[in-house]
């Protein structure tokens, strides 16, 4: 009833939008979530006034799920950084090409120096898996960043100024949300005249823009009427500092959660794009999704070719998901008990 959102309910996928909005509000509730529950239970609260971020971190430190996710993510990032140094061979050199026979034996098996064997072009599979982490990280991070920047711009515009800017931006966002997101990514990738790693990243990033935009706008709107913003306005603080110093930081919680989860979906979606032939056709620099997509042809005889990159993707996606979900729980004022 006391809903601070002036945007009328309706339009398609109204519920999808509301879900995103409520997530935004949950994160913005920072200033009115003192430790009343703890105090009313009569306990002596020696940490009164701890900010949401600090208290979230305190609980995350002991959270097994978060630690597991974070460990996977950290190991993945380290691997991506050092992979070219530890890879036994050049991942793009067809060292075993002489063993590849189109008819009899398209995939070279494991042999000394090549513990996992080669791929369809005679390249060392282990080296490709190791080095592939780097491109995979790029895809995940850049697609997320792209979506974040686009969403940040639109959402900040809409949420900070309201009025017709808000209406216009949100109409566009609503229509974008009305297309199933993965289908939209497929369609965007299909436009590309010359598909490359960047068209893959772009296609995935664009799909994330409306989600981030809605998240930010919801959080901003909730705050526009909150006391700390009203106070700043009453003190004569100019609009820009209010938005960037007072509103944006409070909106970041749910955005960080969403971004963490998006890295996982971006990596999985990139694999799906490659599977449909919409990925990067240049496979000299390996990427896990692309390796998995390419392996489908050889699945019946050589399932290991698909299994290794798939396992890598699953573990890394799981890592980001675990981290994101436990972050979400930690940042939700409702679950502070």
């Amino acid at each position: 009833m006391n809903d601070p959102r002036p945007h009328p309910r309706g339009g398609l996928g109204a519920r999808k939008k509301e879900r995103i909005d409520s997530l935004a509000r949950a994160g913005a509730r920072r200033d009115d979530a003192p430790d009343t529950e703890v105090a009313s239970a009569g306990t002596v609260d020696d940490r009164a006034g701890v900010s949401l971020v600090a208290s979230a971190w305190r609980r995350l430190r002991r959270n097994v799920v978060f630690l597991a996710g974070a460990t996977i993510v950290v190991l993945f990032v380290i691997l991506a950084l050092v992979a070219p140094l530890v890879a036994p061979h050049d991942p793009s050199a067809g060292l075993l090409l002489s063993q590849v026979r189109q008819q009899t034996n398209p995939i070279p098996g494991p042999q000394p120096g090549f513990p996992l064997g080669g791929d369809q072009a005679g390249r060392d599979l282990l080296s490709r898996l190791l080095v592939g982490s780097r491109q995979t990280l790029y895809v995940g991070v850049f697609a997320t960043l792209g979506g974040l920047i686009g969403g940040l711009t639109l959402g900040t515009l809409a949420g900070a100024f309201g009025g017709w800017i808000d209406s216009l931006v949100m109409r566009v966002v609503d229509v974008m949300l009305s297309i199933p997101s993965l289908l939209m990514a497929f369609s965007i990738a299909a436009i590309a005249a010359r598909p490359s790693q960047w068209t893959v990243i772009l296609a995935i990033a664009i799909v994330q823009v409306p989600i981030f935009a809605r998240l930010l706008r919801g959080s901003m709107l909730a705050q526009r009427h909150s006391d700390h913003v009203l106070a700043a306005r009453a003190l004569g603080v100019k609009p820009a500092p209010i938005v960037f110093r007072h509103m944006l930081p409070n909106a970041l919680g749910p955005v960080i959660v969403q971004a963490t989860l998006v890295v996982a979906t971006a990596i999985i979606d990139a694999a799906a794009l490659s599977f449909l032939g919409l990925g990067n056709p240049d496979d000299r620099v390996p990427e896990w999704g692309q390796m998995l997509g390419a392996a489908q042809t050889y699945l019946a005889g050589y399932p290991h070719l698909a299994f290794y990159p798939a396992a890598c993707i699953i573990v890394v996606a799981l890592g980001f998901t675990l981290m994101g979900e436990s972050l979400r729980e930690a940042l939700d004022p409702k679950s502070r008990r």
Partner: protein
Amino acid sequence: MSTAASPPDRRHPTAPADGPAVHDPAAAGRSDATGPLLSVRNLTVRFRRQGEEDFVAVDDVSFDVRAGQTVGLVGESGCGKSVTSLAIMGLLPKRGNTVTGRVDFEGIDLLSLSPRQLRDRRGRDIAMIFQDPLSSLNPVVPIGVQVSEVIERHVGLSRAKARPQARELLSKVGIPDPDRRLSEYPHQLSGGMRQRALIAMALACRPRLLIADEPTTALDVTIQAQILALLKELVQDSGTALVMITHDLGVVAGLCDRVNVLYGGRIVERADRHELFATPRHPYTNGLLASIPRLDAPRGQRLSPVPGSVADNIPWDHACAFAPRCDRPVAACREVTPELVTDEAAPSAPGGLPRALRCHHPVEPGQESR
């Protein structure tokens, strides 16, 4: 029913409750038939905390409620009054806490009953109304169903047969146009109407005991008065005993026959309403009374709130929990746990029940801060 029924290990010789108090020799011979309707003895509720000591929310609380009597449990938030009521109803979470002591209702210890037996009594013999009427009503079920489901459950009527009764109840609690309201949803009612509907649900099966947990806190002041008047009227008409849980001494003044003041999970003072207001003995009670704004106070006189908050509590072992906030502490307050004893020094109405007090340095009659 005597204090002998309570576990012998408790420090009970000086822990009286109304009625069969240790200083009342006649109590020993009393039978259950004439005893109190509800008799809470040494009720203790502990919450388990991770990596910390248990938190004792309700600590050795004993009090009685007689048929038709209105008893107040008064204290600020966190003093254990709500937990007490939930423990009596058996509504505390199933995990994470332990409840000890006795809660005798018509001679049967509710704490010893199986969940099923307790379920049969809840809503029929003992009912409860809660603080926030909006969140206490199911948003997607019509008011009529929420009222009649109690009757269906405990009287065994069909939905169709229970509906006229539900209608009757709604009009009895002063809801206009009850026929229409029956098929409406909580969000379509005003705050006062919602609380009236909750009261109708609670009284649907004519319970002998009603527990009201801050029933007016979430309402506008004008509505508060209406709801209190309604409660008073209904309780008097039906002879239902009422346990009124509140932080508001104004509510106590208008409604309660007998008052238990709680602090830090323990009862610190007990008296009939009139005596309590006339001569508060515990500094906490005194402070609460002094913090009520009075129209007859001289202009410019400051309100004197009780300083500090519950967070300043110290544990009851080897001290008085209220000592850090007390305006008249003595050395003993920091060293010896005060016991709840019959307060002989306090003026008591002729024929009234004895008062009880837990204080090393009580306020003397005439010294009340006003």
